[in-house]
């Protein structure tokens, strides 16, 4: 029983860190540039396709991951220079329309190039099985995701909290005009942040490829989760994104694991069988609505 709880906690952590990889880029773009990017999920999808294609060509997961992330960064750069730069100044409605259009284009373009069937992306042979930790087996590859997630979180913390660039980023997130007035090249900063966000997306897509289907439309389901995370955490806050990810990851995992059992103990079997899974499906949305009810700006609002 203790092992099971431990394993589920680890699962929650892993799911949370995977969400963090996505949410980190999204919250920065959102917070600093005040730009709603629905196409963030599409960058994740395209990144996963890049990684899968490169990994197949090079016959190595790690080379594929590096190449795919680099490719997505280049794509991010092109998108920023050609389109997003024009969108920052516009209202949220225009941003939603433009990035909704990008989703349509990205999904169809990917299907055109790689076909409608899902692509294969497998973990390196050595990591494909489970390993034994503390008396139970755990997929080695999920441990890799946990390691990557912690490393990225640490790196981002150092970058944002300790470095000069990070100071600009934080300044930009809390007051853009003032930062500009202080003579910081906000345009260049925006480009850098957007490209970094795109690379993080591809990293998440590539890392999750061996666990999830690399297929058209994979971006949308993940996009909504990432939005939930940054809303809970507070837009523009890396710390909020991390805390939000871990909360969502844990609540979702534990909800799925425990709710059906719990309800079975409390309710008649019939009602529990209907209610349990339905409740587990909407748990994180309930959580988000609840948090916003008490904290309308999320847990760690970046903007004063």
């Amino acid at each position, binding site marked *: 029983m203790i092992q099971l709880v431990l394993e589920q906690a680890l699962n929650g952590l892993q799911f949370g860190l995977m969400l963090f990889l996505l949410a980190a880029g999204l919250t920065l773009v959102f917070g600093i540039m005040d730009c709603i990017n*629905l196409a963030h999920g599409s960058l994740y999808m395209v990144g996963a396709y890049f990684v899968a294609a490169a990994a197949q060509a090079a016959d190595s997961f790690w080379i594929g991951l590096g190449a795919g992330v680099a490719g997505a960064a280049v794509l991010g750069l092109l998108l920023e220079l050609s389109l997003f730069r024009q969108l920052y100044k516009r209202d949220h*409605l225009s941003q939603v329309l433009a990035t909704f*259009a990008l989703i349509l284009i990205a999904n169809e373009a990917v299907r*055109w190039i790689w076909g409608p069937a899902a692509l294969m992306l497998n973990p390196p042979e050595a990591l494909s099985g489970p390993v034994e930790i503390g008396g139970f087996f755990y997929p080695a590859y999920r441990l890799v995701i946990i390691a990557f997630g912690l490393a990225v979180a640490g790196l981002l913390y150092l970058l944002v909290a300790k470095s000069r660039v990070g100071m600009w980023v934080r300044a930009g997130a809390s007051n853009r005009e003032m930062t500009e007035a202080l003579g910081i090249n906000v345009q260049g900063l925006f480009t850098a942040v957007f490209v970094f966000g795109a690379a993080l997306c591809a990293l998440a897509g590539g890392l999750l490829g061996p666990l999830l289907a690399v297929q058209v439309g994979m971006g949308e389901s993940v996009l909504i989760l990432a*939005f939930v995370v940054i*809303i809970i955490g507070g837009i523009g806050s890396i710390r909020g994104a991390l805390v939000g990810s871990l909360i969502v990851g844990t609540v979702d995992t534990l909800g799925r694991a425990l709710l059906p059992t719990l309800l079975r103990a409390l309710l008649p079997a019939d009602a529990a069988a209907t209610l349990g899974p339905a409740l587990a499906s*909407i748990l994180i949305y*309930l959580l988000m609505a609840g948090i916003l009810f008490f904290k309308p700006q999320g847990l760690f609002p970046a903007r004063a």
Partner: protein
Amino acid sequence: MAFYRPATYQKPVVLALLLALLALPPALTAFGQEFYIGFATRVLIFALAASSLNLVLGFGGMFSLGHAAFFGAGAYAAAICMSSGIADALLAFPLAMAAAGLLALVVGAISLRTRGVYFIMITLAFAQMAYYLFVSARSWGGDDGLPLASRMMLGGFSLTSDSALFYATLGCLALVMVFFGRLADARFGRVIQAIRENETRMEALGYPVFRYRLICFALGGALAGLAGALLANLTGLASPNLLQWTQSGTLLVMVIIGGVGYLYGGVVGAVILLMLEESLVGVTEHWHIALGLLLLGVVLFAPKGVAALFGKRHD
């Protein structure tokens, strides 16, 4: 800025269009193109749904990304009415509007505590919850949806023929548009627009801002419910697909294309988007790319929407 009404010179245009629409079903029948009556009905229904979102978004300044929940709730309410023996639209449609409006009232009461992006996302979250609940609700058909045994009656008239449903939809849309026009000038309309422009001032003046917004949001939800009930009659089905977040996105796209806050913005947007879809589908399998590029074009070159290109602003 005011809730843009058609300038006086546009009135003849609107009347002419209305007359043309009245003549549409017989004309299509005469040319053997009956199929397009159903298509035109669908366009009108989406025009109504998009207009209801425009009320919330353009009029009330509330950026909701969960409007499909009310659209879908209306469709389900109609189907549930039908299966429990209420086959008269005169009763079923108001019930559908009440159900959707009530849902909007609850969602709004919680969501309106938040602002900006948080409001966008919390409305989306509620719509997602509704979607998952309808998908798993076995007694309402789950993902198969809830079929209607037949189309409803409207008073003594049957809506079974495509033309009848077309005229009923046209009537609903016309009534709603007249109502919107009146609303803009009424006290409620002036207050809610003032709130959109400067919330703090209106609060300071002692207006119950929250209540005004909530009523506007619920009204938009109820009208979306009416559109949903009409669509359930057209397709003979209430399906959870109607509640998907992409459906909310589509309605939003219609309003933005048409022109946020323009009286006919929702109508123009629905007509343009659905006609584009209908004509692009036949041209290429990859029509999503073409549609996406066109939408990008609208954002970059017609940022205020298409209605803005024609409509003179009325301040």
